[in-house]
């Protein structure tokens, strides 16, 4: 099967003003995304993530390299008709109301006129905006409502490709859960999704693969949820008592549950767990052994480690 997105040795340089200093935003980036894959792009500010998205959407001219989207050029109209996009700096036509905005994009997307009203109302409903909100001028929307409306327009026409740049920025917790649910549904229905986000926990939750971009290069590529291999460190806090638990006993319990004992620094014990099922088994085993567990929480995710320690720090 041919990839949904193919990026080969892409170089993109910006020049600051006439005769200004050249800044290489992308430096030989290569990447292939399979149809139906959900790919997260992470990296520090200025790493080139948004530039990469801009190149994939055909907004920017490449200095070198090649990009194909479903075997075509990124600015091919067929590709655009199958694409949904939510930009990072979401600027909507503030003078329209929400429904008008969706109708406008529905028409621009060349979708069927007859289904316009139904499609727009359904899109509004899908992102949790009521009809009354749809009749409100966009200039009066809160940041979270804007993000929801932006996602609604990106979903118009059931796109096969979805490009999301910081999709949950400014969204309340209920909105984050809604976005997560929608993205999971889309992913399951075979939509190819690219998410550029600083919300590492969310990326870890919804993406199947993550690329770490730094200084215009892809420094690491990682499968996030290949089956159940979501390894992490679990911190278990124990009730303080006169007799601290013996590390050897904790290690034996952990081994019995398929986890690894890392260390005991009162009042916390740290275990390496491969997945959620191991976490459940470990906690059950600790409680069954009478270990006074008062709290358990995963420590930083692997993406967080990747982000803070670089590729070498990834487990």
């Amino acid at each position, binding site marked *: 099967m041919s990839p949904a997105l193919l990026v080969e040795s892409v170089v993109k340089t*910006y020049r600051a003003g006439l005769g200004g200093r050249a800044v290489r935003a992308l430096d030989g980036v290569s990447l292939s995304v399979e149809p139906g894959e959900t790919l997260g792009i992470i990296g520090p500010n200025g790493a080139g993530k*948004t530039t990469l998205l*801009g190149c994939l959407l055909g*907004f920017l001219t490449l200095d070198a390299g090649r990009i194909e989207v479903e075997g075509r050029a990124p600015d091919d109209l067929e590709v*655009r008709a199958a694409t949904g996009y939510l930009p990072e700096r979401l600027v909507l036509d503030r003078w*329209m109301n929400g429904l008008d905005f969706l109708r406008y994009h529905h028409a621009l997307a060349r979708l069927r006129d007859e289904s316009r009203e139904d499609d727009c109302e359904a899109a509004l409903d899908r992102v949790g905006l009521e009809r009354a909100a749809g009749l409100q001028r966009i200039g009066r929307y809160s940041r979270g409502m804007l993000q929801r409306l932006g996602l609604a327009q990106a979903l118009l026409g059931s796109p096969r490709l979805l490009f999301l740049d910081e999709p949950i920025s400014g969204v309340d917790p209920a909105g984050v859960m809604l976005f997560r649910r929608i993205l999971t549904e889309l992913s399951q229905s075979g939509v190819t999704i690219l998410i550029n986000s600083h919300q590492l926990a969310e990326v870890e939750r919804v993406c199947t693969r993550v690329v770490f971009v730094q200084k215009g290069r892809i420094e690491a590529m990682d499968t996030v949820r290949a089956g159940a291999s979501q390894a992490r460190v679990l911190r278990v806090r124990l009730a303080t008592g006169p007799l601290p638990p013996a590390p050897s006993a904790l290690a034996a319990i952990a081994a019995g549950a398929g986890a690894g004992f890392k260390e005991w620094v009162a009042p916390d014990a740290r275990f390496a767990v491969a997945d959620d099922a191991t976490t459940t088994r470990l906690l059950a085993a600790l409680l069954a052994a009478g270990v006074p567990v008062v709290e358990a929480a995963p420590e930083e995710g692997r993406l967080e480690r990747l982000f803070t320690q670089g590729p070498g720090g990834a487990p």
Partner: protein
Amino acid sequence: MSPTLMLAFLRQRLTSPMRLVLLVIVFLSSVGMNTVTGSFAGAEGNALFYAIVLAAGAIGQDISSGVLQLMFARPVTRPCYVFSRWFAAGAGGGALLLVQMVLACGFLLARGLRPDFAELLPVALAGIVLAFTASAVIVMLSSLASGLGDMALYFVATLVLTGSGQVARWKGWSVVERLADELGHVLAPQLHLAWLAGRGAPSWFELVSVLSTLTLSLAVAMLVVNRKELSYAAG
């Protein structure tokens, strides 16, 4: 051209209070003037004004506000976008002139005066052509400057050309004077079609000058927009 883009553009223009005030003032005063004098001489200049007011910031405001990214993520070509902006502003300017003339004719007839219908057709036609030409010039300037920078460019260029024309006339530099004059016609095109009503001879130079200004302006606007990179980093 996209009817969706054109309609949305005109709706957006009419939500701007400043534009509305300018259009209403000039529209009403022109209807009044036509009604009082019973003449439509020079009314084609109104179409030019309407088109400039409607076209101001046509592309530059989209660039500075950042709405172009969402638009060009849709199956919309850049030439289609430029053409739609141009045509909407030109058609809007032309339509306003026609409404102005129809209203004034109505008032004249109500006063028992018969408008000079032979004068109307050349004025209306010239007005429509000028509206589309001025709209093309402003769209071109708008592709070069963000926000309402096109208006700044327009007024600075007008000042410079007027000033240099005056200096050239005073110094007797005929070539410079002619150059300033012709370039001035790019910013404020003139077209007289009275010959259509059998008055005077046609000025083919004037007609070709207006049409070439229109074509060249659109070509430049399209070239600039086609080359524009849509990224805040590119800015």
